[in-house]
């Protein structure tokens, strides 16, 4: 059942929200032991919220566009009184005294939060194996990873635990797991969705976005969460008109570019390239013109990202010091307490990135690393600007391969980082991008095709995605 179907039937009184919630909670209880999409299921809260939706319907009030739709929240979104862990020992048991803006918005739209989903600790990873609470498994094949870092959210949607989920995307953390789990994942334009209440990883790159089984559902959710927020200085005052109304406007006359550097890059599986080409052909058949386009600086995206993101993270994660909330490991003095708390509370990947980022910002290295990475960021933006002079939207793979086996890449951080090679450039540019399922690989696992668009061109991006969805094999 899609979110769209749930919302329409609940709004019309055909189905009760409590019944829908019960059904999804039962699925979670039956199958999440194996998948481990959730860190924390919220049975009581979900049933209470669903009952409120039903009460509104019985009073002939409109509970909103997401009436009674179960939604899973990545566990880095703050929920007042409900544990918010970021899958880290350092925040184990923390109950925030406030709620993230996006969560307020989906609730106000009638959605029913069913739980908090697993992630790579502090959203650092591409497989959801870096979780202090154990990995999430891919519902399509439990021996495989679901991707990451929003692996729990992608798995929850793929496993039909909830038709909708929210994730966060810093370098591909919504799109890559969406591709690996065979669902739709959207990273909106930087600033289109408020970050207030999203536990920061890399502030200039993080965006919250939807995961859903269909493009229509993703649009429904994006329309609810996008918009200005007085609590986030980086939220754009008037981002874009709603995406849903123009979803089926088609793509006649649109110019689509296939990004060479993101498609021909080393390590991208031929079957993934073939899927992108097939999607391009489908777009052409639907009335668009398709050409290849070069954006040479995107080649440096990965390197720039692995300097910028850890640098910002090293600062964002300084606050986990054992003083105000979360874990404390005692020490003889405050500095020792800080260091021991952080040594014990952070996992390997988080420590690695904190160290990397601290180094990249430290005296003597700033210009060579962080400063230079910011210049490369400018070059990437210029390349995209040039591409968007000639094209309305761009196309590339989302992930180089289909879902890999658990443990396959944990020993080599660089091989894990390479998973994000196609998704990172848009985070650096602040542009929107989304992954749409498009067929399967030889292993029978889903492949995702990525649609990229210029800043605030979400309505256009969704039109392209909708056509790809309709022509998916």
């Amino acid at each position, binding site marked *: 059942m899609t979110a769209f179907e749930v919302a329409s039937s609940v709004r019309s009184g055909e189905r009760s929200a409590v019944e829908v919630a019960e059904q999804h909670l039962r699925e979670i209880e039956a199958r999440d032991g194996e998948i481990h999409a959730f860190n924390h299921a919220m049975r009581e809260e979900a049933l209470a919220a669903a009952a409120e939706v039903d009460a509104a319907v019985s009073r002939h009030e409109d509970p909103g566009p997401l009436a009674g739709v179960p939604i899973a929240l990545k566990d880095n979104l703050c929920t007042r009184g409900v544990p918010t862990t970021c899958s880290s020992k350092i925040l184990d048991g923390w109950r925030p*005294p*406030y709620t993230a803006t996006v969560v307020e918005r989906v609730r106000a739209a009638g959605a029913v939060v069913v739980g908090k989903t697993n992630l790579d600790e502090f959203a650092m990873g591409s497989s959801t194996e870096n979780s202090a609470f154990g990995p999430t498994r891919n519902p399509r094949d439990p021996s495989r990873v679901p991707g990451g870092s929003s692996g729990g959210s992608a798995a929850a949607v793929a496993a039909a635990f909830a038709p909708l989920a929210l994730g966060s995307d810093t370098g591909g953390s919504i799109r890559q797991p969406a591709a690996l789990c065979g669902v739709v994942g959207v990273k909106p334009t*930087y*600033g289109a969705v408020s970050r207030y209440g999203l536990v920061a990883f890399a502030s*200039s790159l993080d965006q919250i976005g939807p995961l859903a089984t269909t493009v229509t559902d993703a649009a429904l959710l994006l329309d609810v969460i996008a918009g200005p927020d*007085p609590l986030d200085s*980086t939220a*754009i*005052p008037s981002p874009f008109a709603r995406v849903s109304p123009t979803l089926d406007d088609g793509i006649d006359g649109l110019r689509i570019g296939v990004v060479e550097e993101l498609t021909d890059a080393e390590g991208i599986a031929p079957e993934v390239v073939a899927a992108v080409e097939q999607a391009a052909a489908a777009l052409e058949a639907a009335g668009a013109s398709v050409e290849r386009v070069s954006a040479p600086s995107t080649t*440096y995206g990965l*390197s720039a990202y*692995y*300097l910028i993101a850890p640098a910002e993270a*090293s600062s964002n994660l*300084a606050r986990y*010091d*054992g*003083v*105000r*909330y*979360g*874990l404390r490991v*005692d020490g003889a*003095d*405050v*500095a*020792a*307490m*800080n*260091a*021991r708390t*952080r*040594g*014990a509370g*952070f996992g390997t990947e988080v420590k*690695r990135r*904190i*160290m*990397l980022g*601290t*180094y990249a910002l*430290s005296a*003597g*290295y700033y210009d*060579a*690393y962080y400063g*230079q*990475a*910011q*210049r*490369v*960021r*400018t070059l990437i*933006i210029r390349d995209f600007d040039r591409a968007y002079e000639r094209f309305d939207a761009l196309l590339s793979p989302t992930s180089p391969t289909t879902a890999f086996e658990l443990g396959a890449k944990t020993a080599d*951080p660089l091989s894990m*980082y390479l998973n994000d090679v196609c998704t990172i450039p848009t985070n650096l*540019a*602040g*542009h929107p991008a989304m992954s749409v399922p498009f067929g399967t690989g030889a292993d029978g696992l889903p492949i995702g095709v990525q649609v990229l668009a210029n*800043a605030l061109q979400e309505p256009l991006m969704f039109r392209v995605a909708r056509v790809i969805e309709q022509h998916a094999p």
Partner: protein
Amino acid sequence: MADRITRADVQHVATLARVALTDDEIDHLTGELGAILDHAAQVSALDTDGVPPTAHPLPLANVVRADTVRPSLDRDEVLGEAPAAEAGRFRVPRILGEAP
């Protein structure tokens, strides 16, 4: 480009970042950070003369709020999350140095 990161560098960075690391972790990190930085060195080698840095992908400026009071949090709720509290304050072990 800078020399390859050493064990001593890793130790120094761990002090700056206030992370207690085991000897084993320091060994691992020395190798891993070296490899990642080698990869990152690609960007250091690029000619970016005259290219301004981008700190932020947004063209916004002058985002402000009015100087009006909003409710603060309930102190009991705040201190309830603290690992240690005393007399309405957060309790910490002794502080060895003055603030810089």
